[in-house]
């Protein structure tokens, strides 16, 4: 890829910032605007930009499609699993108060885990959809 020099340099500069922004939105969502959903979308946008500029095979090297399939279910399982833990402990589904000794600490932990699950599923599903669309592109 010797052409698109400006595009490549700009993308190389932007992608780390976008990914960092995604992580920031993910883990700072309790304090500022944002949360798992927005973080997942931003994170996948950064990786999609990578695929657009450097090629889909480079992205597949970094994030294999199998990993995307697994991760999109891992996020849902993390969310539902957090809910199930409180059921096992003896409470109701998604009752985070029981996750720790202190109810407020339990809420913190529960919301953190649930948001992480949302972020993982959203990011991997968005990437999966994009990869599938783009990979089919050359077979048409």
């Amino acid at each position: 890829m010797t052409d698109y020099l400006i595009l490549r340099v700009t993308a190389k500069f932007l992608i780390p910032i976008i990914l960092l922004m995604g992580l920031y939105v993910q883990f700072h969502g309790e304090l500022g605007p944002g949360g798992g959903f927005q973080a997942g979308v931003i994170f996948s946008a950064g990786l999609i930009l990578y695929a657009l500029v450097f090629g889909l095979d480079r992205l597949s090297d970094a994030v294999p499609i199998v990993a995307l399939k697994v991760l999109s279910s891992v996020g849902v399982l993390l969310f539902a699993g957090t809910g199930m833990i409180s059921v096992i402990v003896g409470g109701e589904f998604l009752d985070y108060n029981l996750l720790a000794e202190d109810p407020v600490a339990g809420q913190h932990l529960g919301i953190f885990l649930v948001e992480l699950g949302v972020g993982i599923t959203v990011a991997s599903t968005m990437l999966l959809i994009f990869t599938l669309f783009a990979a089919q592109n050359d077979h048409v």
Partner: protein
Amino acid sequence: MPPLKAATDPGWVSTLMIELIANNVLLLFLAIVAVAVVRVRQLLVSVMLFGIYSLLSAAIFVVMLAADVAFTEAAVGAGIATVLMLAALARLPGEKEEARARGQFWPLVLVVATGALLIYGTIDMPGFGKADNVAHRGVAMQYVERAPKETGIPNMVTSILASYRGLDTLGEVLVIFTAGLGVLLVLGGVHTKIASPLRPDAVGIRDGERRG
């Protein structure tokens, strides 16, 4: 909500004026973009215009102090949705559809009638940001009073979405998961092999031109 702090803040008149101007300008742009989306004949251009439409909506949400919603609209509507539309566009053959000029009278009547009904419906809407609105009389006050104490999380939107309405959010995540699953099945991606690199010109940067 600006109207609530109107009594204490002496600068509220100018704040309201600025908000009014910003809202009206943004809504005007929104209307212009909407008309342009309908009128434009190139799919690439209309996808781009949809992105602009989402970005303008996000700006309106910011003016309405709904930062989380604005965030989502900007990231999803202007970002991911546009890219996915471009990826889908690159799969289409590059032929242009001929514009059909006939039979536009009855659709116009239908659209005008529907629009008039919708505008008539907005007359019954409660005032924007009024404290005694129906939406604020139910559980909303409970959330405002209890969320900081019970969850200890400053961003109330996060605590409502993740904790109080956790089941709804789980449903949303399942919807996204199902969407991914559906695309995986429809596009035959169960055994997808990545054949060749996707280059910038493949996603329609060269204006709907078909590759290969």
